[in-house]
């Protein structure tokens, strides 16, 4: 099974190389190759997750290794869905780099299937983690676009204003997607906590940081829809929001203890 994991990582790295070559050479063949490899990588990961699910007899979303695999998968899938609608040339390279990095980091953790502690033995595990990571995936893509926007918005940049408009619009939509799924993730987590411990909210560090992240993106959406915030301001909030996502995901696991300590 680990071979499939490594193959997925290798294919994402191949997609990254092709996407970079495309950016440098503008040869369409490399763009096609990069997207085919991204699709192949996502497919390999889907099979890997499926096999692991079958072997473990439960959703493989219970520790750092498994969640990083899911994170890489969600970013790749969200990018591929976006690619069907918009062609943002450098986004393929950024998404491939992100997924490769996530998988490479995952490989530093114990990959053996471990038995679940009683609190995690629930169907809510699947819904809660899946929805959270789809949300995180949306925010990660929005973060990549936000950085791309800031780079393209420099005075020296040759990027057309229309392209920046597209970037801004896609960033807003991926944040909306992420917000919808993060909300669903927080709510399913609350329902799960209530069935496990009799309290839907206990101000656990992970819960609290999820709420902080939710607030940041809620502020983004309000500013955008009610004050028309676009461009650089929106890009900076997208970046700040994703830093909060990263702290919620990594920082809380390693720096703060709480109900989610098993995730570290």
């Amino acid at each position, binding site marked *: 099974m680990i071979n499939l994991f490594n193959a997925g990582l290798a294919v994402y790295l191949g997609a990254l190389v092709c996407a970079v070559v495309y950016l440098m050479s503008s040869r369409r063949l490399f763009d096609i190759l990069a997207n085919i490899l991204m699709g192949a990588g996502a497919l390999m990961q889907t099979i890997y997750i499926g096999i692991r699910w079958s072997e473990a007899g439960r959703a493989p979303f219970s520790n750092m290794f498994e969640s990083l695999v899911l994170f890489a998968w969600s970013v790749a899938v969200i990018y591929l869905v976006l690619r069907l609608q918009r062609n943002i040339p450098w986004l393929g390279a950024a998404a491939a780099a992100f997924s490769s990095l996530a998988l490479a980091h995952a490989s530093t953790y114990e990959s053996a299937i471990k038995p679940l502690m009683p609190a995690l*033995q629930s169907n809510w595990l699947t819904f809660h983690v899946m929805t959270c990571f789809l949300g995180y995936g949306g925010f990660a893509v929005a973060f990549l676009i936000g950085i791309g926007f800031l780079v393209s918005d420099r005075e020296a940049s040759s990027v057309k204003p229309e392209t920046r408009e597209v970037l801004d619009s896609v960033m807003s939509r991926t944040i909306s997607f992420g917000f919808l799924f993060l909300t669903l993730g927080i709510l399913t987590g609350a329902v799960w906590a209530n069935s496990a411990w009799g*309290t839907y909210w206990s101000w656990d*560090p992970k819960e609290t940081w999820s709420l902080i992240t939710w607030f940041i993106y809620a*502020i983004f959406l309000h500013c955008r829809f009610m004050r028309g915030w676009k461009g650089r301001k929106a890009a900076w909030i997208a970046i700040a929001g994703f830093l909060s996502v990263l702290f919620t995901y990594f920082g809380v696991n390693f720096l703060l203890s709480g109900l989610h300590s098993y995730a570290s």
Partner: protein
Amino acid sequence: MSEQNQAETPDTIEVGPSAWIIIQSWLGSLKFSLSVVLLIALACIAGTVIPQGEQVSRFLMKNPGPHKGLEFMTSVGLTNVFYSWWFAALLGVFSLSLMVCTLRRYRMIGRSTGAVRVRVIGSFITHISLLLVLGGGVIRVLWGEKGVLQLSEGETATACESQTGAPMPLSFVVRLVKFDLELYKTQDPPSGDEQDVLYVQWPEKNLLVPIALEETNTPVVVAPGMQAGPDSTFRVKVERYLPDFYLDAASGEAQSRSTMPNNPAVYVSVTGAGVTNSEWVFARFPDFTRHDESGKKMRMPLQFRFVSGGVQSMMGRSQGPVKAFKSTVEFLENGQVMLAKTIAVNSPVTFRGYTFYQLSYNPEDLRWTSLQVVRDPGVPVVYAGFLLMMAGLTVVFCVGPYLDDKKKGSGTAI
């Protein structure tokens, strides 16, 4: 109030309504609402990075002495952020602001059309849902109950201990019938099987006979090279088996704490060579030797060693994590069992409005359980809020953009 009236009574006009309008416009302004959200977010950050509640007590126990910074933070509620008066006040102001914003959106519904109207409806539903969630929280604080119930097997209780330490009476009786702990099997048992074996040793004759426990009704031990006779045959019988041996202090009777092989013991009687004897043999304590009343070691040529498959298995699994812990309880009213259920983590049981959750157990005493008892009338309100929130956000982020794109003809809704 009309302009004419204002002119006639200049000292009393406008104060009430205009003040309300000002407060309303202030509370409902985006700047104010988002500022409150930002303050709550900052308070949340403080609540996660500054030690809270018990963490502070533990820190002070480890590091006694004056801690001026900590004392200051405690005095302003920073070491108990989420239960401080000012955090509750922030949530209160947030709720007020939310109410005004919700009212504004309600008014906007009538003034908008098409996809915008759909988005406004979605936004209105989302804001209502947030109010429901906050309202459910208020109901919990005002009318909810929460306590902990600790029981040993066979014990009953009519009250549990609330969070403040005060007794929380229940209108029924709860009895713990049984507590079960299951462990994951992470390693194979060392012997390859999990059989209980009684080894009968006759050191003087260099004899060792293994006997499977279930076959020890009337075995006969004969030393090699000897004729079976009164000095060489023994009848060994296992009279009792207790997986988790303990001596009841009150009755002096040997009993089992649980069905888990935590301290397996067999009561062996042996007859032969003109002697009849009985003794307890412990799997975990093979060197345990009973002495007779004179303090001398009992005279018996045979010695026993009990190897418990359960213990072997447990030792193999000793590093294995807990798979499940369950409490089988009965709820009684007027001496009648009204409900008998097993409570496990993620599988609570509700009786007469109280929900019982499996909280913890005592690894040193596996007859003991700890249950969380919760009565929270706010949960249905909160869950209604959750459903409405997802409905509202789906309308805002899916239906609205879909209608926009349909109008434009591009069909690229995310």
